[in-house]
Every structure is written in structure tokens, then in C-alpha cells.
């Protein structure tokens, strides 16, 4: 059974429906599944719950889906870079659930690993803990956080093979491997599709079992949010 598709639209064909939950990899604009996001925008699917650390910027990444008002709710840790997000949130058009970044990552990891909940110290004594079960272990208080299983996970990888094995590059890895495990269906866009057997099995980050569909994109934009440089010799 082939997992490879021609492009993002083909890879998403038949998978999208209104009201679904989508988990997306990426941190800021680094390692985001930019072509899958664009294809979801083009599909017109709406009332989405999107699980993603950030919400993109105006006009790029998840900012595109916000602009077209396809998102009903975001589950994120930091959303500071997006004016349209701000506007929709302040006007009550968009629901927002803040999750601490490590808790969000672990919720995806747990969901993908069949663990419905876990206890963490993160957030104890803060607004995040309100309404959550508290439990003491060895004299320390922890709160219960729930694992997340998404209807669809979308990820961006550097290399992939036709079996869905993925390798990420540098800090573009971030939430991608965690999101990839948390989808009932996972679709990956890769920068380079390689022949079977050419990925070193010892270096694969996401084993193919987690990836149902993938395609090799061309012309990735890979926008940089904060270009900071030093002078030569500095």
C-alpha cells in the first residue's frame, strides 16, 4: 500500500471535515507544515480545533487559517505574533486554551502513547491548575493533565522515505515528532523524498508506523521570524 502522494491537496484528500481537531508540528515558523496548512486553507474546512504551540503570523503558517476564520479553537502555549489572532480572540470569535509548552508537548506525546493523562508539577498554584485534579506524591503536589489524540496530525520533515520514516533537521524537529504520534491520521510533508533503504535506520526520528500519508513538497518558503546575525569575526 503506497503512502506517497503528489502534493498536499492529494495527501489530505478525504481526510478533512468540519469540527475536526488537527495537531500541527512547528515552533514559531520553524518546522511548520506550511504546505499542508495552505492546503487546509484552500479546502475550506471549518470549525477546526488546532493544537499547535504557536498560531503563526499574519499571512503565513496557521495565521492563514485564522485569516479565513476556519479555526474555532486554538490550544497553544504562546500566540504573541499574530494580529488577526488577537482581534478574533478579543472579540470572542476564537476560543483559546493556554497550555504550558512542556505540558502541551507531553499531552501530545502521552496521547500518541496511549496514556490518557499524567501528573505534572507544572502549573500548580496557577490559573492553569484551576478545575484540574490535584494529587500529592512524595510530599509534592501535582496536577492531572490529559493526553491529546487529534483526528489529524500534520508535520514537516526534512527527509522521508515511501514507508513514512521521517528525519527532521535541527530545531525544525520541535513538536513534529510528538504531533506525528498523536494523530489518528498523520500526514507529513517532506523536503526530500529518498529511496527506500537510504535513510540510516539508526537515525530515523519518526518510524513509519506513525505516518499514513506523505508527499515531497517543492518551493518551501521556510520563513524566518527573527533574523539575528553577528559580524564576521565577532
Amino acid at each position, binding site marked *: 500500500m503506497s503512502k506517497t502522494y503528489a502534493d498536499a491537496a492529494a495527501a489530505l484528500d478525504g481526510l478533512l471535515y468540519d469540527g475536526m481537531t488537527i495537531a500541527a508540528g512547528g515552533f514559531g515558523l520553524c518546522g511548520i507544515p506550511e504546505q499542508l496548512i495552505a492546503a487546509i486553507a484552500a479546502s475550506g474546512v471549518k470549525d477546526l480545533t488546532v493544537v499547535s504551540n504557536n498560531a503563526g503570523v499574519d499571512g503565513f503558517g496557521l495565521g492563514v487559517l485564522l485569516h479565513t476564520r476556519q479555526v474555532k479553537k486554538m490550544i497553544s502555549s504562546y500566540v504573541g*505574533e499574530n494580529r488577526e489572532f488577537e482581534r478574533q480572540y478579543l472579540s470572542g470569535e476564537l476560543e483559546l486554551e493556554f497550555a504550558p509548552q*512542556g505540558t502541551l508537548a507531553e499531552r501530545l506525546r502521552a496521547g500518541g502513547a496511549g496514556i490518557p493523562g499524567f501528573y505534572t508539577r507544572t502549573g500548580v498554584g496557577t490559573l492553569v491548575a484551576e478545575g484540574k485534579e490535584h494529587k500529592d506524591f512524595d510530599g509534592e503536589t501535582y496536577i492531572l493533565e490529559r493526553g491529546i489524540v487529534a483526528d489529524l496530525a500534520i508535520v514537516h520533515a526534512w527527509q522521508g522515505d515511501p514507508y513514512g520514516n521521517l528525519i527532521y533537521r535541527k530545531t525544525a524537529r520541535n513538536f513534529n515528532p510528538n504531533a506525528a504520534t498523536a494523530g489518528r491520521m498523520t500526514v507529513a510533508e517532506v523536503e526530500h523524498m529518498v529511496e527506500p533503504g537510504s535513510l540510516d535506520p539508526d537515525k530515523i526520528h519518526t518510524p513509519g508506523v506513525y505516518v499514513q500519508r506523505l508527499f515531497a513538497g517543492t518551493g518551501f518558503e521556510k520563513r524566518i521570524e527573527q533574523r539575528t546575525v*553577528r559580524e564576521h569575526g565577532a
Partner: protein
Amino acid sequence: MSWTRDEMAMRAALELKDGFYVNLGIGMPTLVANHVAKGIDITLQSENGMLGMGPYPTEDEVDADLINAGKQTITELRRTSYFSSADSFAMIRGGHMDLSILGAMEVAENGDIANWMVPGKLVKGMGGAMDLVAGARRIVVLMDHNDKTGGAKFRKSCTLPLTGAGVVDMIITDLAVFERPDRRSSFKLIETAPGVTADEVRAKTEAAYQ
């Protein structure tokens, strides 16, 4: 004479011990990396998934796949490793970071810290701050002693929503340094900036300390 931002960062750098794994918060804490003493070798963690963070790149080294938690382009070092966000916070939550240096809007005398949200203002989110204060073995706060209207930032209790409860070990301000030996003890004034008296610090602080 109060300390400048660089002098505060320099003071914070004295808390770095050889071999430490350290996470520096966004803003003033990033200046601490410029003041690491000779002979002290530390490894910086970036919570988006990197240990061994290098300096900013030269123009030709810029790589869209290589950024820090502030979304700035950076470089790798010979010691660098990359990992997923879940692994990154496993090492933070699991107590493997020796130290985190963070900014704050308020710190309370019991070590509560508030640095993510002002009610009524736009809330951008806590990012990794709640995980860091709950997980790093030692938390050092770098902040101005008073806010722009002169209000004390080291207080009896925080007025803003907390990032973490009872987690701060040391506070370095532009006027003074407070420390406590453990999280059940109260803070003690251990240093003042040159020309700043203990009385002046007392007058500009709401919190009780020794």
C-alpha cells in the same frame, strides 16, 4: 548607583558553575551568556529542542531550521544535540537543568513568581515559563527593583496571576541581591549595588526579608 542591565547580567553570571546546564529566559537573561567567566564551561539549553546553543550566525550561516526559543536565528556548537519538544521539557521537568535565569514582573516573599500575564491586557501565553520554574533545580530572577511608577516588584504577595508558586531561589535587581538557602526559608539581603544602602533597599521593597 544602581546596577545597569549588563552589571545585573554580570552578577547573575556568578551563579553559573562549571559544567552547568542552563536555560536563559528571553530578554535581559540572555545577556548573562556574554559574561561567563573564564574557566567556567556551561551548556545552554533552548527549550524548542536544543542543548549547546551557539552565538548568532553570520549572514551566510543563517539557517531557517536553527532558531532559539525567542525565534532568533542561532548556530550550533561541537557539543550540540537536538531533540523533540517533549524530550526538551522532559529534561526540564525531570530536574536535569541546573539553573534557569528568568525575568519577572513580580516576586513574592514566599518565592511566588508572576511573569506571564497582566489581567485586562492582551495575554500572549506562558510559553515554557511555567515548566521552567516548576522543573529547573534553581531559579534566579533578574528584574528591576521597582516598576515604572516606583511600585515594589519584590512584594508580600503577587498581585498578578502566578507562573509558579514558591519556586524562586534568588532575586537580582538593579539595587540588590536576595537569596534563600531553600524554598522553606525566607529571603535574605546578601548584596547591594555600589552606593545603595540597606535602608534604601528596605524603603523600596514591600516583601519581608532578613
